[in-house]
């Protein structure tokens, strides 16, 4: 089985679940002898760009360019990897695209360091300086590249992850007449509720309609696809995400700097969709009741500044910490340091981070508005908007060790079922059905 996959970012630069899912899934597919030609939008010297310009509070890890290339070589399991020079990146919006494009252009102008881009037989397509003026024209340009690649490459199915690559998938399908699978990790409905961008919504719908089969990351997402995008439920398959157990790090909790304090963690993009403001308000309520607790908000995003100001206004700066965007090792360390993980998402198609937290045997609270809630029976679920309920649940867990124990005792059993191998098996089956039908 050969697949032309339009995917996203790779470790150690991962800005969210989309990158994590692409990585976890394709790694397991490769183990099942699926030959993947992986197409990845990427700016030359992106690592330097990130280090130099990324909108972060505090630098996570500044990896050297060579380190990253080394890491990628070691971890690459693709038959072929094609880097398309494009400023498309996950979670970019209309506004942030323009900002990022400016930075990219400036970076490319200033950059004296020329990176060698082809390694072990992979190649990159350089259309630099020619980027789309706005996000949608860049998506269109990327689609043309998709069409071009589909003539050159040899594959049986096309697999496109999330809306920015859907058009490329459709163009590749039109050109090659091979079946197209679109993988929906999030929709405009999740990101913006009913007030999303109509053009993006239309693009998503177009991709879903043209696709032979659709993979949704949860039943929740399938429902959205069927109800909001009016797609025939028979072509929508649910494949839940998994969690990579290998990443779990060892951390000696005795070396924790805040020995007397419990740590409650939020880890994710700081955007409306993820509900970080509810976490902050709940933290404030908790701190009015109990003292020996610290709240940590890890990540970056367009709401960061607003939340920092809110935190300052509430005068809880001695109990509430922002870490900024974190690299992989700091993420793992932070999970290990924590006593409770909260995912208060307003709308979460899946939500891998609670699973990542569970690897460290810590209890989690998730919002009812998340896809992963379908799978987890031993976690506490609250409505994202119910900050009083969230606050009292936090206090309950922190103050009652027996509750904590009962919440975590089956963690390993549950996680075993959340293997990327299982997800990859289902995806492979979908590939096979597509090929048979074609």
């Amino acid at each position, binding site marked *: 089985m050969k697949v032309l996959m339009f995917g996203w970012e790779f470790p150690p630069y991962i800005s969210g679940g989309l990158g994590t899912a692409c990585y976890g899934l394709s790694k397991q597919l490769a183990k099942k002898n699926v030959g993947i030609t992986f197409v990845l939008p990427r700016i030359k010297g992106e690592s330097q760009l990130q280090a130099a310009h990324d909108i972060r*509070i*505090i*630098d996570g890890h500044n990896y050297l360019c060579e380190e990253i290339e080394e890491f990628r070589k070691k971890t690459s399991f693709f038959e072929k990897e094609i880097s398309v020079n494009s400023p498309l990146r996950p979670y970019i919006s209309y506004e942030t695209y323009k900002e990022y494009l400016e930075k990219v252009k400036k970076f490319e102008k200033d950059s004296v360091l020329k990176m060698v881009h082809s390694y072990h037989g992979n190649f990159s397509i350089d259309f630099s300086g020619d980027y789309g003026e706005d996000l949608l024209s860049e998506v269109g340009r990327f689609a043309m590249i998709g069409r071009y690649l589909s003539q050159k490459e040899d594959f049986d199915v096309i697999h496109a992850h999330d809306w920015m690559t859907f058009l490329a998938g459709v163009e590749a399908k039109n050109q090659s007449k091979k079946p197209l699978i679109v993988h929906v990790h999030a929709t405009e409905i999740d990101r913006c509720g009913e007030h999303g961008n109509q053009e993006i919504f239309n693009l998503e719908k177009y991709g879903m309609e043209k696709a032979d089969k659709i993979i949704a990351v949860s039943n929740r997402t399938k429902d959205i696809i069927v109800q909001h995008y009016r797609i025939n439920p028979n072509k929508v398959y649910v494949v839940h995400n998994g969690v990579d157990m290998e990443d779990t790090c060892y951390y000696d909790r005795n070396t924790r*700097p805040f020995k007397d304090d419990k740590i409650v963690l939020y880890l994710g993009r700081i955007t409306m969709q993820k509900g970080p403001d509810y976490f902050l308000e709940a933290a404030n309520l908790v701190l009015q009741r109990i003292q020996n607790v610290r709240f940590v908000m890890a990540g970056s995003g367009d709401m960061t500044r607003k939340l*920092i*100001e809110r935190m*300052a206004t509430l005068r809880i*700066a001695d109990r509430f910490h922002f870490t900024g965007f974190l690299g992989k090792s700091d993420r793992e360390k932070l999970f290990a340091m924590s006593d409770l993980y909260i995912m208060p998402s307003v709308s979460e198609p899946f939500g891998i981070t609670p699973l990542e937290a569970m690897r460290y045997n810590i209890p989690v609270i998730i919002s009812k508005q998340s896809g992963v809630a379908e799978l987890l029976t031993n976690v506490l679920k609250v409505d994202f908007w119910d900050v009083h309920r969230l606050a009292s649940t936090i206090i309950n867990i922190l103050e009652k060790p027996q509750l904590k124990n009962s919440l975590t005792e089956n963690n390993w059993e549950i996680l075993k079922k959340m293997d990327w191998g299982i997800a990859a098996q289902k995806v492979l089956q979908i590939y096979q059905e597509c090929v048979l039908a074609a």
Partner: protein
Amino acid sequence: MSVSVCFYFQVHQPFRLRKSYNFFSIGPDHFYEDDQVNRGIMLKIAEKCYLPTNQLMLDLIKRYNGAFRISYSISGVILEQFQLYAPKVLDSFKALVDTGCVELINETYYHSLCFLKSKDEFKEQVFAHKNAIKRIFGVDCTTFRNTELIYNNELASEVEKLGYKTILAEGIERILGWRSPNFVYYPVSAPKLKLLLKNYRLSDDIAFRFSNRGWHEFPLTAEKYANWVHAVAGNGEVIGLFMDYETFGEHQWADTGIFNFLNALPEKILAHPDYRFQTPSEVAGNYSPVGPIDSVHYVSWADIDRDLSAWLGNPMQDSALEMAYALEGPVKNSNDPNLIHTWRKLLTSDHYYYVCTKWFNDGDVHKYFNPYDNPYDAYMVYINVLNDLKLTLKQRGIVC
């Protein structure tokens, strides 16, 4: 009737914190300051400003045989940095003071906002500065100016109680009303104190507008400027030209001609027989106050607002200030001079200046030697450091 031109220069640089001080640093890492950055900035300013300007000032003092006279306030934290990174600069200041034509002015050692939060701490920092100036330069100061010319009635009376004879403030309409800044006044709350005001138009012509090509008076020559200064004759007695010392060579680079301007200025000003240069205490001794100044609210020389809004007013600045000063008791209870010194260096006003969001979208003076990309970064680093200090105190069994 003679007119005195009174030059006063602020010489100060903070101990900047490490931009990389993040959440994971809290606990294991007690090194807050970025020695490399501070050293780099100090060497750069020393080369571009302090050394060449001090040399020029020394030449001018010698050339005019004592007729050219100036004053400085050199903060304690910059004195420490001179000792650490640029001892030559300190030597050149000593040479200037030794001419007898230079007056040194007292301020809070840490160039802090402590008067706003703690009168005890204020006194301690003033004494610390007084002692440092005495120790290093062998002189006693009789003139005081608070951080960034932050001033009000209450401050004046506190300063009077500390034994000072003269105080400096911003000559802004808010406190002057219809009156001219070009006279000696006295604070309504401290009648024995002489109050010297900054002539902000003439001061800012040099400090901010000198190299501005969009300014209709560009280019500014010493002759033209001297004419403006001479125009005061007959309706003023003293002209307070107060500015950052970094104006020379740093805010205005050498290639703008600022040094040539300064070099030519004394001759042009002294060409008028009624004009002379005097230091603040000399001015205070020579002129009687013409009236009281009533300043209930704080004024300062910062930004166009000339109030406290450069350092305080947004929730980040306010919460940072509260959190820092809440540690005063616990830090002092530690009886650890190093810890107290570390805490006090965090009180330096620049840390709050970096968190200002007023014109954060435009380039402005808040960017001078500002290590941060934005006020939010500055706030997070500062708060992280305070959290580590708090943890240290807690580990020593001190409640805070």
